[in-house]
């Protein structure tokens, strides 16, 4: 029961951090509950499908199918997060102004919600697939699901969901005028971290071998398998022994997001240009 609790909690915790951020980012946007719920549901279905086909998936790409698949969906999440931030840089202000108005603002808001729902789905899919395989393994070993496994998993799910709720409520305590800045920053770091994770998978598969030397080792200070290390890994991509390539891609992702946000930023309304 303890093993089920720990594994389910750990995975729900990681997905929960991301869902909590998405909920805070979309606070006040009409229909966001449905979008996020749809993302979670799609992620759960996806997790089961991936779990069932893990064997076949592994054999693709010369035995590196899992790595290629993970790198692929992580890259997709990075693109969605980037797109969201750029979109918000352009439309954030008008969205905030017209939040209560029906019509265009809501329609426009849902575009960005769709991108975030995809991110939620990917987070749930990745963490969920591990949970499904683990619980299946426990059930298979016992010759069927047991109450202790269900109870352990259930408690893990509830505790993990509390993390999601705490993240959300914590972010909501930030005054509204800073919230956009904080969440944009969080999302930029989240995207950079996911991009670095994608690189780690490609390096594990030996698809990328350049710049694979370890840049630093802070495992003595904060191991990325510790509780705090895992949280920071999910949030900002903390790795205790990053490779040079991971670092390069991390910085490049941040730079691309910042530049795109600047390029596509809404023209300032405070200094209207004279014709």
């Amino acid at each position, binding site marked *: 029961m303890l*093993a089920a609790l720990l*594994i389910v909690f750990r995975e729900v915790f990681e997905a929960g951090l991301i869902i909590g951020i998405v909920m805070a980012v979309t606070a006040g946007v009409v229909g966001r509950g449905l979008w996020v719920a749809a993302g979670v549901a799609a992620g759960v279905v996806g997790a089961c499908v991936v779990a069932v086909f*893990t*064997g076949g998936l*592994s054999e693709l790409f010369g*035995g*590196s199918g*899992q*790595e290629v698949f993970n790198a692929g969906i992580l*890259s997709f999440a*990075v*693109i969605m997060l*980037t*797109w969201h931030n*750029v*979109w918000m840089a*352009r*439309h954030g202000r008008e969205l905030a102004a017209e939040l209560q108005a029906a019509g265009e603002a809501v329609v426009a808001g849902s575009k960005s919600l769709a991108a975030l729902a995809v991110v939620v789905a990917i987070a749930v899919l990745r963490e969920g*697939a*591990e949970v499904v*395989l*683990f619980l*299946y*393994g*426990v059930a*298979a*070993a016992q010759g069927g699901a047991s109450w202790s496994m269900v109870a352990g998993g259930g408690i893990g799910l509830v505790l993990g969901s509390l993390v999601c709720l705490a993240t959300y409520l914590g972010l909501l305590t930030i005054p509204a005028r800073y919230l956009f800045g904080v969440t944009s920053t969080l999302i930029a770091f989240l995207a950079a971290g996911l991009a670095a994770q994608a*690189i*780690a998978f*490609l*390096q*594990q*598969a*030996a*698809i*990328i*071998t*350049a*710049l*694979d*030397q*370890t840049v630093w080792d802070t*495992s003595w200070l904060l*191991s*990325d*398998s510790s509780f705090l290390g895992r949280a920071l890994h999910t949030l900002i991509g903390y*790795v205790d*022994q990053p*490779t040079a*390539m991971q670092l*390069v*891609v991390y910085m*490049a992702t941040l730079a*691309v997001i910042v530049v*795109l946000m600047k390029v*596509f930023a809404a023209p300032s309304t405070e200094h209207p240009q004279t014709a």
Partner: protein
Amino acid sequence: MTGTAHRKIGAGIVTALLIAAAVGCGGARAEDPVSLSVTIKNQKFEPAELHAPPDKPLAIHVKNLNTIPSEFESSDMHFEKIVPAGAEAVVRVRPLQPGRYNFFDDFHRATQGTLVVP
């Protein structure tokens, strides 16, 4: 934002990824990885201790002879890979300094092993 702008962003990101991939492939090491093998059976690694030379890329082949899935993982060597029951998988490890590196089955934490680099 216009559709063209979306495409530009997409194209930019794809280009960046392609460049990264090209650099990665172009810089591929001529050196072949050193192959190591380990099996998981009755929730134990066999052998529980592997040996590898320092400063060489490694390829660890793992075969899961349990009847349930495993997750072959190492925080020290930075890999994690699900190995379905009866399946075989390979993980690549970048060149290691001398030392002892722990690996485990994340789905059954009691299943532990060590890689020794002299």
